């Protein structure tokens, strides 16, 4: 693979590139689903190709190809340079990159069981057994299960001399039960909505989930939800379960801190950010117990945002985002770091595949654990609502105003969960919400959740991000807004 990279870089240099980096990537994926006791999707795919990004005449060009012959690579590299020269026809300034060392390294994400080596029969048997457990519950009208496994090899080479090979093994698994009764559809998912939990692990992730114990529990909840009370509309105390809090972090912290958004580079599509450059080190983003980091290092955990080097050849780092409640850092790359006074990229350039340009992305943007035991948090809450498992999510294009709904809620009275509630939802303004946080559970309730479907960029790219979170409590939150006028 290094020969492919070198050939492409050599051609780019000959054509006039002043900088170039190449990614050869080989992606393998297996998808399994079941529905109502039958196999749904059963598919495996692979994709191998090369993408080259170059600077010429002070502007960027990128081209990609799956034609990995000498001629194909030369044409692709030449095309990237021609595109860069075209970009220069509409540039306002020269691209300047923050300095970075050259690295020669090889890294593999840790896993105990290669999911592609686990017999398919074993995987399907588990999904079909969990499916059957859910279908046993009266009132359940649709059962779904899924597993997804990926193995991604990438070979990164740059004109400054880096040669980095990385192999990542990623697993995902989830189950869901849906119940249609009367004029209402209710759904419960485990361990998270929209495909379950995903992480940088092998098949051991699936084995850790205990699907068989949880399948009947969520199925019963889906059926029962029809007969419980509607979540009231009020301003009050909210406790979020860990997976929902993970998505709250993703939308109201993770996206606003992307420096390309802040600088207007996503203004036409994904949007901008309320975190303008003057807010750095000034904004009281959250209450003083809130500490958030963007941490791509393995030390943080095996998340979807974990790697050794980003797709720009910068080593994985941990960046303070919110420290004791104050806004402290953005996600940056080599092109933008100097704009926030950094002499080095924070290492967050990521790409979906060989045919996509790396762009600034979340790594593992996590809320650090607090001090509360979960049971103590519940018993300390006089009047509140606990919400778990995301059902819908939406936030404005500058990341101020959000609304989430979850699959299930619980009313808490006098320190006890007293009754189940259906159709829970809440809304707010990002900074007001985070400043209302008064309790965060400790590390033994903390999970590094995976969001596998984060879309950004044009052409659209989907990458996975990690979000560590433990249940937390928020005061004076607008609850029940989604259904208030229906």
């Amino acid at each position, binding site marked *: 693979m290094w020969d492919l990279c070198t050939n492409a870089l050599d051609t780019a240099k000959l054509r006039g590139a002043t900088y170039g980096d190449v990614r050869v990537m080989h992606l393998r994926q297996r998808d399994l689903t079941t529905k109502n006791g039958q196999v749904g999707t059963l598919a*495996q795919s692979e994709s191998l190709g090369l993408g080259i990004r170059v600077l010429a005449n002070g502007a960027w060009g990128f081209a990609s190809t799956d034609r990995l012959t000498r001629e194909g690579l030369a044409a692709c590299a030449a095309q990237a340079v021609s595109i860069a020269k075209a970009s220069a026809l509409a540039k306002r300034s020269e691209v300047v990159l923050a300095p970075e060392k050259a690295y020669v390294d090889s890294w593999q994400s840790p896993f105990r069981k290669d999911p592609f080596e686990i017999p398919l029969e074993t995987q399907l048997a588990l999904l079909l057994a969990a499916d059957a457990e859910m279908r046993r519950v009266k009132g359940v009208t649709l059962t779904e299960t899924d597993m997804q496994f990926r193995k991604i090899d990438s070979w990164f080479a740059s004109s400054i001399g880096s040669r980095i090979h990385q192999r990542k093994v990623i697993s995902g698994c989830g189950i869901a039960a849906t119940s249609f009764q009367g*004029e209402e559809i209710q759904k419960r998912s485990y361990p998270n909505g929209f495909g379950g939990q995903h992480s940088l692990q092998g098949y051991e992730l699936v084995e850790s989930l205990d699907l068989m114990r949880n399948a009947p529990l969520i199925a019963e909840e889906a059926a029962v939800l029809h007969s419980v009370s509607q979540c009231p509309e009020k301003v009050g105390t909210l406790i979020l379960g860990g997976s929902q809090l993970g998505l709250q972090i993703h939308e109201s912290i993770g996206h606003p801190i992307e420096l390309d958004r802040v600088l207007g580079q996503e203004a036409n599509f994904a949007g901008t950010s309320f975190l303008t450059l003057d807010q750095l080190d000034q904004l009281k983003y959250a209450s003083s117990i809130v500490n958030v980091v963007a941490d791509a290092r393995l030390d943080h955990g095996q998340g979807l945002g974990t790697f050794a080097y980003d797709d720009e050849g910068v080593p994985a780092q941990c960046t303070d985002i919110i420290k004791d409640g104050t806004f402290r850092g953005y996600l940056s790359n080599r092109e933008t770091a100097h704009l926030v006074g950094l002499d080095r990229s924070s290492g967050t350039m990521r790409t979906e595949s060989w045919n996509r340009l790396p762009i600034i992305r979340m790594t593992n943007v996590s809320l650090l654990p607090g001090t509360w035991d979960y049971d103590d948090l519940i018993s300390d809450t006089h009047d509140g609502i606990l919400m778990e498992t995301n059902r819908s999510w939406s*936030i404005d294009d500058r990341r101020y105003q959000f*609304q989430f709904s979850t699959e299930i809620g619980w009313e808490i009275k006098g320190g006890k969960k007293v009754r189940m509630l259906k159709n829970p939802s809440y809304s707010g303004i990002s900074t007001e919400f985070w400043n209302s946080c008064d309790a965060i559970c400790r590390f033994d309730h903390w999970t590094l959740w995976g969001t596998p479907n984060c879309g950004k960029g044009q052409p659209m790219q989907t990458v996975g991000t990690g979000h560590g979170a433990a249940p937390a409590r928020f005061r004076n939150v607008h609850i029940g807004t989604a259904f208030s006028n229906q």
Partner: protein
Amino acid sequence: MKPPAQNRKVSTASSAGAAELLHERELRRIVDTVLRLAKSTGAEEAEVHVDEVADALTRFANNAIHQNVAEHGLTVSIRTVVDGRTARATTNRIHEDSLRSAIEVSLSLAHRQPKDPRLLPMPGKQRYRAVNRFIKQTAALSAEERARAVRRACDLAVKKGQVAAGIYSNGQSQSVVGNSRGLFAAYRETHSEFSITAQEGPAASWAKANSTDVRAFDPQKLAARACQKAHLAVNSRELAPGRYTVILEPAAVLDLVGFLFYDFAATALEDKRSCLNERMAKQLFGQNISISDDVYHALQQGAPFDGEGLPRQRVLLVDCGIPKNLVYSRAAAQAAGKRPTGHGFALPNEYGEAPMNLVFGGGDSSMDKMVTSTDRGLLVTRLWYIREVDPYEKVMTGMTRDGLFLVENGRVTGAARNFRFNQSLIEMLKNVELLGPAVRATGEEAFEMVVPAMKVRDFCFSEVTKF
């Protein structure tokens, strides 16, 4: 097998144009090779999809190009059937060894699962209605031409003291599907798109067009429109949340009603996750709402065959507000005792089918007429981050974006801060007072469809944001 890649025409080093696609006979040769190999490896039936794409996209922000990309890719996706079981394997490596390996993976997956009682034999040879959606001028648009057009649009923004961001893209793609029962279908198209957001201080507005024919829109006119509306959006005022009459531009309509498409899948009803369960043949929407699925419509795009290679049929989904018909894959049709409509996804899958080429019936009301007939309401340019809150009542939430304007006494009187909405689509389509002509609309939440602008009463805005 001699790899077709050797014959692939790739752009020369002096050009920043996109790679050319293979000739259809090269794709047919890949199909034939896979079918021959599959037969020799024990597959009872085999189906092959070959998809090729050559796209380019120029992205600009802060009045300059900041990203500029091109891609070429070809994938071969193989489904085999053995003993009542089926599975799929996909690769982009088209040497014979790689294709054989993909066939073996597909067979191995298929072997190791329970029998599928609903699996049907593959369909035989079909007849297709010809569509021509390949425009050579679109395919030929170069990076230099895109850059010059972007430069002109940005210069306009600069002249007006504004900041522009957007994209200008073009590309070509082709798909063929063939199977061991003699079915073969081929389709190619071009596509192009220009989108621009103009920002004036905290205000912004947006314009976008999308077509098979790059000559069908003028980037400079779109830029002028976005700049003009961005200026109108300056000094927005905060209004109280509540129910408003809204005038939804076609992009706003599209991004909302786009969430209805899967509800018309027969499999969605069978799974009881469609909002049409227990509601077929009832007066669900207003009498002025009619919806069909029609891939052959002049403003539509897409292949005239489905994932199994069946010809797509035009289907009347809603007639004068009454849901009349659904779309059916072959398996769903078999289960329901209906005829397949040519809307199935590639097998195996759990979703069945969906109408992918929605065409709403339009009216004759211009945007001006909608505004002049409104005492108090809001003109909505675009919606954003729309998600489903209630799947049966089809309550959607989302935000207005890039130009929300207050209409008073028949004219636009100023800009308003953006709102969050929580609105049932079913209720909304009961409350449509006026319809514009149906146009090809393009947004960001739904794929392109043919929809009209709509004037809708009692649209529910629940909260307001900071800008």
